[in-house]
């Protein structure tokens, strides 16, 4: 027991150290991304006594990413999102390796270890600093428990499923649709509870429908299962909405408030240069979606076919991802990025871990060979996915790692921050729309006093900048973020201010305010 614990500790530290080294290298090469900067910005703002702590922290979205990274903000606010993503991804990887090691030999465990270490998806999860790692952990946990329920039919696994779903509203509330997707599965599970040894699913159903007592028990059993899965997540989400209404006067304050997410301006999810794209990830283009899914779902296809006789497992594999994509279309989501697409990959891993021993490939060497080949194939597919992705964060990551290129907007922000650090006196008050310029604020690292959007001082400064601010950062008309910049609306007529430009970049200007 103790030897095993030490072994897994070593595996965990190996992942942590290797991901950490990789991150150090890419950051030294200039890797930047929107979401980690946004999270760091929030941590820095928390140290500002003037801000509304509740609105700033509790309604930042996704709040789950903030909570997971918050403990690391005491070490370093700028690195906190990365520490969290490395640590939690390493935990997940260690768990996967540990689970498969219990079922197979050392060689295969090493192969799995290496795959997880070199998989672009897992590298991205660990080192991008985005909330992607939270998605894969929740997906993994949810489906792993679901598959285990199929093996054991113990309420323990359904409970843990429900707990996993309860975290979803704090990550992406749209994913709560998963609850509805599970209802057909729960129906199947309930029929299984009434299973007779010699009969099949349809016969079980017929038998239940013929007897009134069985019908009653079946319905109450089914309703109970639905409640167990759905009660916790829906209640938790309702409480969150209630708190939003209490403090923000709107149940969806966390969505409408433009400072509550890294891309709440909705413009940051588009790339600044479009170019020729092999694939469109627009949600309504289902054929393109299928093509992109194939890139990252070789494993999913393998799990589908390798044990096709395990009917419930196959049903789960089929229902969830397909319904997820269909619902994304119904919700008119503009972009499907890896946060959603990865469900195919993760559900396959969860299935692989649960049913590895039972699958139809009995020959250990054949199993080893087939899975190893698929792992290599998956690495290639994932790499190609990132190459083709137009999701801004994924694209930033890929271009940064492979070409040492930084996103133009972020690079410009960084230069602006350097100018501010070098040229603007310490503790000067700077007015800017945080939802647009949070990268600058983050780079500044609390050296200067930036007025927070949700503070009273910001509102006063918007009306009388001369009285309440020393400097202003404002978007230029050619900036893709111009229409979202609240200052551009308030300040554009004020010629006196606009004439005193002390710094200018492609997309924004820094103005020194003339005191009257």
């Amino acid at each position: 027991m103790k030897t095993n614990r030490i072994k897994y500790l070593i595996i965990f530290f190996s992942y942590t150290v290797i991901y950490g080294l990789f991150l150090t290298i890419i950051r030294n090469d200039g890797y930047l991304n929107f979401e980690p900067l946004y999270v760091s910005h929030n941590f820095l703002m928390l140290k500002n006594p003037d801000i509304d702590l509740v609105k700033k922290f509790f309604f930042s979205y996704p709040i789950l990413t903030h909570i997971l990274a918050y403990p690391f903000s005491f070490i370093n606010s700028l690195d906190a999102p990365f520490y969290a993503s490395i640590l939690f991804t390493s935990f997940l990887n260690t768990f996967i390796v540990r689970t498969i090691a219990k079922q197979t030999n050392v060689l295969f465990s090493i192969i799995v270890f290496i795959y997880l270490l070199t998989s672009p998806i897992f590298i991205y999860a660990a080192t991008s600093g985005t909330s992607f790692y939270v998605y894969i952990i929740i997906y993994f946990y949810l489906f792993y428990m679901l598959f285990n329920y199929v093996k054991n039919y113990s309420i323990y696994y359904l409970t843990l499923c429900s707990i996993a779903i309860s975290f979803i509203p704090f990550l992406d509330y749209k994913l709560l649709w998963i609850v509805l997707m599970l209802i057909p599965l729960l129906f199947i599970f309930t029929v299984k509870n009434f299973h007779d040894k010699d009969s099949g699913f349809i016969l079980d159903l017929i038998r239940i429908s013929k007897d009134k007592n069985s019908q009653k028990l079946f319905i109450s059993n089914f309703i109970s299962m639905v409640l167990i899965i759905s009660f916790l997540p829906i209640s938790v989400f309702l409480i969150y909405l209630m708190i939003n209404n209490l403090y923000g006067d709107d149940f969806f304050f966390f969505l409408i408030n433009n400072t509550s997410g890294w891309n709440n301006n909705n413009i940051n999810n588009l790339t600044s240069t479009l170019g020729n794209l092999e694939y469109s990830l627009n949600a309504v283009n289902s054929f393109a979606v299928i093509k992109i899914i194939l890139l990252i779902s070789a494993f999913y296809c393998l799990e589908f076919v390798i044990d096709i006789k395990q009917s419930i497992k196959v049903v789960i594999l089929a229902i969830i991802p397909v319904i997820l994509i269909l619902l994304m279309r119904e919700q008119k989501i503009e972009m499907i990025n890896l946060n959603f697409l990865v469900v195919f990959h993760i559900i396959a891993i969860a299935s692989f871990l649960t049913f590895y021993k039972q699958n139809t490939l009995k020959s250990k060497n054949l199993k080893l060979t087939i899975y190893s080949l698929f792992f290599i194939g998956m690495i290639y597919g994932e790499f190609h996915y990132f190459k083709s992705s137009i999701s801004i964060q994924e694209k930033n990551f890929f271009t940064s790692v492979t070409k040492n290129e930084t996103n133009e907007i972020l690079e410009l922000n960084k230069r602006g921050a350097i100018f501010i650090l070098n040229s603007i006196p310490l503790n000067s008050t700077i007015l800017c729309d945080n939802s647009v310029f949070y990268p600058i604020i983050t780079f500044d690292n609390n050296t200067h006093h930036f007025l927070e959007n949700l503070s009273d001082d910001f509102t006063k400064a918007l009306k009388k900048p001369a009285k309440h601010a020393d400097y202003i950062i404002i978007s230029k008309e050619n900036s893709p973020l111009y229409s979202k910049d609240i200052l551009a609306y308030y300040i554009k007529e004020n010629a006196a201010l606009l004439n005193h430009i002390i710094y200018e970049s492609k997309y924004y200007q820094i103005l020194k305010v003339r005191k009257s």
Partner: protein
Amino acid sequence: MVNDQYIYRKQLFLDSNLLDVTSHKKVIELSKKLDKSFLKIALDYGFISRGNYKKQLLKNNIEFYQFDFNTLNNFTYFDACKEDLYYFLNAIAFPLKNNNGDVEVIVSDPSDTNNVYSIADKLGLQIYKVHIAEDLDILKALHVKYGDDILYKAVFNLYDQDPESSAIETFTYKQVVFLGIMGIIALLFLFFYPKTSIVCVNVFINLFLFSSILFKFILTIAGSKVELESKITPEEVTKINDDDLPIYTILLPVFKESEVIYKLALNLKNLDYPKDKLDVKLLIESDDEVTTNAVKDLVFPTIFEPIVIPYAMPKTKPKACNYGLYFSKGKYLTIYDAEDIPDKDQLKQVCVLFDKIPKEYIAIQCALNYFNKTENYLTKMFTLEYSYWFDYMLPGLDKLKIPIPLGGTSNHFKLDKLRELGGWDGFNVTEDADLGLRSYAKNYKITVLNSTTNEEANNDFYNWIRQRSRWIKGYMQTYLVHMRNPIKLYKTVGLKAFLGFNFFIGGTVFTFLSYPVLLLFIILYYVFKSEWIGFFFPEWLIIIAIISFSIGNIIMIYMNMIAIFKRKSYSLILYAITNPIYWIMHSISAYKGLIQLITKPFYWEKTNHGLTKTTKES
């Protein structure tokens, strides 16, 4: 010797059809084997009923001797009875001296002259006259006259052996001083820093409440992991050879039970255990005429030996059980309440499990549930509560190796270890929870078994409040007793068990006391938009309070929902949503218990049984 009421045995038992020939033979065999009188075996081992026996005696024109229990002190004291009370109880014989100084004896069996001669030998005296009385009256007289030493031990044994573990003192001197100092410090802080103090108190209450609930949730999940596991298989039980089974003591403490005695007698008959290896003690308080008359009037045979507890304060179930413990002969012992319906093979399952588990395990707690679960709202909520407690939380404690507080009944002990621990604390109104923790403090362990005893759920609001106030008061007593020396407790049981104890026992009490306070806080702020809440408490604290209170309630509702699955009680699931209302009832009981803790700590709130119209079969 004058025995003018002598009847031939054949006439009394066989010709009257009280016993058939085979049974008569069995009684004689058992009498010799167990060294008890003929009538004792016949009455206590289910051969004849007391009611029918009395009728037969009356048919034979027997005049019963009428005891005046108020003047028992005037009767001559026989040292032989004191030294070997057990002998006289088995003989069902009470000696006395008449006005002339002649020794007379009161017996229950007019046909058993051998018994009378044995008594004479025991006393070393000649017996002048024999009187006849009902066996219960004779037993009562014996216990009341000669049971004082045993009674003293029943009340004070634990206190004499281990005073620190007895709840005879609700608050020790050190605890009073400590609470006093804390109170003064709190007042000073409130005076000089009122806002900060109130904020700190609020934070503490919220955090502790939420942590307690979360802890129980973790236990429930841990327990659900072993939901499908069974420690004993049916094959292991069927393989048992009855001859290899040990003697099993069952204590049945009763008080003012009339109707329920009938059900009790039937339930005992259904137990799958060799009759001659059952040592069943029906513990009746000496002033309990209701139960005494009910037992006397039973018209079907029963398997129990009445033990009459002489009157002494505190009048509690643990004191009664301690008294019965003195007369117990089994290797294992369990307690059942009057209305309990245990699984038929529960005793056998326990025997098998004790043989399987390591020796440091000295007690096994079986699951409790209710046969009248759908009777009304209260019974439904009670069933949900017991289901998550016994089907999920206790197995969760077992799995995580945290001390298990025993339930009121169906806890099975190794008798020698129970005596070693000093029995139950007669001053603690939840003696079961206390004993569980005391076991751990002495490095013994307790486990759980998936065998059910069905009970009657309280279906009356006021009856429920009384019962629950006693339980919560008992938890308060248990907490105060075991936290007299927290450092010592921590060193003995370890960190996990120490924290488990604080969250489980202390947390339960704290939760129910603080729940209405937090509820009021939330209502004032959210519903009435009270401004003074905003004045005292910062926004971040209000939001934390709302979140922890709401999520705490949701978790509790969810735990109740999980509870239905093991027993497939699906019809109850929607009632789980009303758990907050049920908790308000708990809070009422908690405050009642708190007041009683100070005003009458040893007062035993009697729970009325036999109120349900439901039977297990229905």
